[in-house]
């Protein structure tokens, strides 16, 4: 699922994602060349608290559905229909169980920290959230970017 959705996400959000710090330095150097760095320019860093485990399931699935509808072609990604993708997404979120101290537990909120799918799902959810900031920044010729870590295993 991650390898299916992450390339689409990255293509759509490429302008506002950093895949590493080198990527950011390139954007900053362009910002300088374009004459936007003044001696009063400030840099802002922000972090989102506990993103993975905070994502609401329903909200994230709805964001995923909107994302698929918008970016698929004739309702399909490759040979898979949006319906297939949504079913798989629910399956991943609903079957996240673990054993601890001889007891079984099922996660009911957010996604599993280590799961590749949680990453791309959180990215898609965040992408909707950040649209206002992106618009604000681009209208003032400023940089907005979010760091996206290891989208694919190599």
């Amino acid at each position, binding site marked *: 699922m991650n*390898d299916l959705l992450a*390339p*689409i996400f*990255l*293509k759509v959000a*490429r302008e506002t994602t950093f*895949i*590493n*710090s*080198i990527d*950011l*330095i*390139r954007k*900053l*150097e362009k*910002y*300088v060349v374009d004459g*936007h*760095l*003044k*001696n*009063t*320019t*400030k*840099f*802002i*860093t*922000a*972090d*989102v*608290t506990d*993103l993975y485990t*905070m994502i609401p399931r329903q909200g994230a699935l709805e964001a995923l559905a909107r994302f698929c509808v918008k970016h*698929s*072609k004739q309702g399909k990604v*490759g*040979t898979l229909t949006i319906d297939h993708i949504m079913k798989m997404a629910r399956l991943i979120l609903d079957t996240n169980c673990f*054993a601890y101290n*001889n*007891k*079984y537990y099922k996660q009911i909120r957010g996604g599993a920290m280590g799961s590749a799918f949680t*990453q791309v799902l*959180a990215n898609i959810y*965040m992408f909707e*959230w950040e649209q*206002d*900031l992106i618009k*604000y*920044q681009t209208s*003032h010729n*400023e*940089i*907005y*970017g*979010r*760091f996206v*870590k290891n*989208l*694919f295993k*190599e």
Partner: protein
Amino acid sequence: MFSFSCRYIDDIFMTTNRTIDDIKKELDKSANKDINIKINYKFDISVDFLDITITNDNAKLRTSIFHKPVAEPYILPFTSDHPRHIHRNIPYATLLRAARICSNVDDFNTESIRIDVSLLLNNYPPQFISKQFCRFFKLNNAMPVLKQLDEQVYQRLHRTLLHQPTRREKTLAKMMKDPVDSPLVLERKIWDAKLIYPAYLFESGQSIDLPRQFYKWWKTYYAYSGSSVQYVKVGLVPNTNRTLESFLIHKKPPRDILTRMDTL
């Protein structure tokens, strides 16, 4: 010291020429629109972000490597039982990263001293280090940087390396080519009968000569001229010994707890 201070996908970076009040209003608006997303932000003319320090030095951009205060100078010890090319690659790769990130030659110099000391602390022989440092500057046509910290040559080196695509970017470019019509992950992998990558357990000592002997043996007895495998390419892949970490840490619960369904 070489560790990246990367966290998850929750790090945001922005630039601004607006007033503090304006941008605060905008950020708070975003912070309040979804109760699930809470953000902490700060702004300054100099910030640490991921593994870099970014400074606005009187309208001049300065970037350098950021080291977490708790980072220790640990790298793969020279005495570790790894194929030698891995040790050779470390000085090269760390210098490459420093040259890409540091925007001025003095920061780069500080960084290369740091690299040098870390290598020494991990038992890399001085001669080995000098040789690998030389290799880096020679291959990138930047000997004047090594010899007299030439600022102009450094600027060229920094720019060239910064704009060279990294290995990850090449992989990403391949995956992003046509992700909706023909996703790479759904494509069938075609088996290439002309390539074999047998793995073997690497150990320095008696078997250090194994690859050479293997290729000789392969050529003599299998890939001799006229043989059906004459044009098959063979590349030996050295596997390293299990680390203590993989030996001692078991993440997966034992089989009986996974199959004992009656306690549910």
